[in-house]
C-alpha cells in the first residue's frame, strides 16, 4: 500500500484515501472539432504505459478532493515526487527528456 504525499494537504496519507487517474500531462485538444478521428482517438485512449518512471494523476478522493501529479516508478513503485496541477515534474527519465527535445525542435 502506497504512502502518498498530497501536495495540497502537505501530508503523507494512506493510498486508501486516493484514486489513481492515469497518465498525467495529457492536454485536451484546444479545438476538438478540428481533430481527426485518429487524433481524437489518440487523446482518448493511447497511452505511454512505461515500465519505469510514470507521470500520473491521482486524486485525494477521501481528503481534500484535489487532483495532483505523481512521478512514480511503475517497476519498483517508488514515488519520486508529487506536485500540483499545472506544475512540471522535476524527476524525469531519459525518454521524457528526448520527447521534450523532439517537441521543441
Amino acid at each position, binding site marked *: 500500500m502506497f504512502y502518498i504525499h498530497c501536495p495540497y494537504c502537505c501530508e503523507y496519507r494512506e493510498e486508501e484515501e486516493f484514486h*489513481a487517474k492515469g497518465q498525467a500531462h495529457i492536454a485536451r485538444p484546444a479545438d476538438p472539432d478540428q481533430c481527426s*478521428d485518429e487524433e481524437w482517438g489518440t487523446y482518448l*485512449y*493511447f*497511452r*505511454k*504505459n512505461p*515500465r519505469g518512471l510514470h507521470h500520473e494523476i491521482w486524486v485525494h478522493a477521501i481528503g481534500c478532493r484535489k487532483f495532483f501529479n505523481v512521478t512514480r516508478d511503475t517497476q519498483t513503485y517508488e514515488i519520486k515526487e508529487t506536485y500540483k496541477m499545472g506544475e512540471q515534474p522535476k524527476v524525469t527519465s531519459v525518454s521524457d527528456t528526448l520527447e521534450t527535445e523532439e517537441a521543441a525542435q
Partner: protein
Amino acid sequence: MQKYSGFGLLKHALTYHENWQRVWRSPKPKKKYDVIIIGGGGHGLATAYYLAKEHGITNVAVIEKGYLGGGNTARNTTIVRSNYLWDEAALLYEHAMKLWEGLSQELNYNLMFSQRGVLNLGHTLQDMRDIHRRVNANRLNGIDSFALDTQGVQELVPIMDCSANRRYPVLGASWQPRAGVARHDAVAWGFARAADAMGVDLIQQCEVIDVLAEDGAARGVETRQHGVILGDRIGCVVAGNSGVLAKMAGFELPVESHPLQALVSEPIRPILDTVVMSNHVHGYISQSDKGDLVIGAGIDGYNGYGQRGSYPTIEHTLQAIVELFPMFSRVRMNRQWGGIVDTCPDACPIISETPVENLFFNCGWGTGGFKATPGSGHVFAATLARGEAHELAKPFSMYRFYDGSLVDEHGAAGVAH
C-alpha cells in the same frame, strides 16, 4: 513426440523414469525465421502451435525473456468461460471454448480442463437485468448459458449464504455449465511440447531489446543474449509488457498495464465444486484439485509492472469472500501473487496489424487472457500466416479506438475477468 499414456507411465516406472524424453529442445536461435513470436506465454505458444499445425509454417521462433509460461499464464486463477455479452467477444471466446474441449487429447497433455461450471452472481435488480441480457445473447449465439434465481444458485452451491439478510443478497446468477477451470502451467507446457515437436524453436532466457524495422516494415528483433534474429513476420504476444514492446517499435497502444492480484488458501477438503464470481461484491472463488481455494478480484487502479498490488485489494477481496461464504472465515490464506494485465478501455483484446508493416500485436486481454488461450493463438496464427486479420479477429483491430467501434464489455456486461 513421445506419446504420454498410463501404459507409458508403467513402462517408464520399470526403468526408474530414467528414459523420459525431453519435453522440448533447447535450441540455439537461427539467423532467420519465417515468423518470430515474441513472448513464450500461453498465447504465444498456442500461436506457434497453430502456425505449425494449421498453416504448415514451422520455421518459427518463440522468444521468451524468462521461462515458458512464466508471465500471466502462471499467475491467473485458471477460469475458462465464454459467456461474454457482445457478439464479437462471445464468438471469439466461444471459439476458444470449443478448442479447449478436446485439447488435452490433441496435445497429448492433460490440461485438466474441468468443466465444472461458472456462476456470475447478481446482487441488484440492475445486475439481474444485465444477467438476463447476457444470457439471452449467449443463447442466441449458441453458447450454453442459463439465468438462475436465488434458489437455483443455492442448489448449485449449498454452502453459499444466499439468505436475504446479507448486505447484498444473492438475487440470482448466470450459469455456464461448460465453463470451468484448467491447469494453467499445463496449458503452456502442452502447447510448447507440441509446437517443439513440429519444429518450432523455443528460445528461453532471451530478451528482445529492440524491434528492427526498415522503411516502416519490421525485419527482425535484437535480443540481449543472442543478438539480431531476423523474421519475415513478427507477432508480439507479451501481455503486460506490450507497451514496452510497442515503444521499441515506435508507437503507443490504447493499453495500460495494471497489477491483478490473486491468492490461495491452504488446501482444504473439497467443498466447492463450481466457480463462483461476483462483480458486485468484488470477488471470485473456485477450489483446485489440490484443495486450495483460488481467489481473485479486480485490478489495482494504478499502472504497475511490479507483479504485485496493494494490500487493501486483498482485504476487500477476502471481505467479499467471507460475505458470500461466512463459513470460510477461519480458513487461512496461504499465498498471494500478482500478474501484470494489459487492459484496454473496452475490456476487449487487440489482435491487430500495427503502424509497422509485418509487425502484429496480440494484447490487451486484461483479466480475460487465460480463458482465451487456444482461441487467441488460433486466430493470431491465421492472422500471421495470411498477413491479415482472421475473421474473428477483425473487430479487435487497434484502430477501433480511432473510429469508435469499441466492443464495450466494460460498460455493458458488468462482468470483468
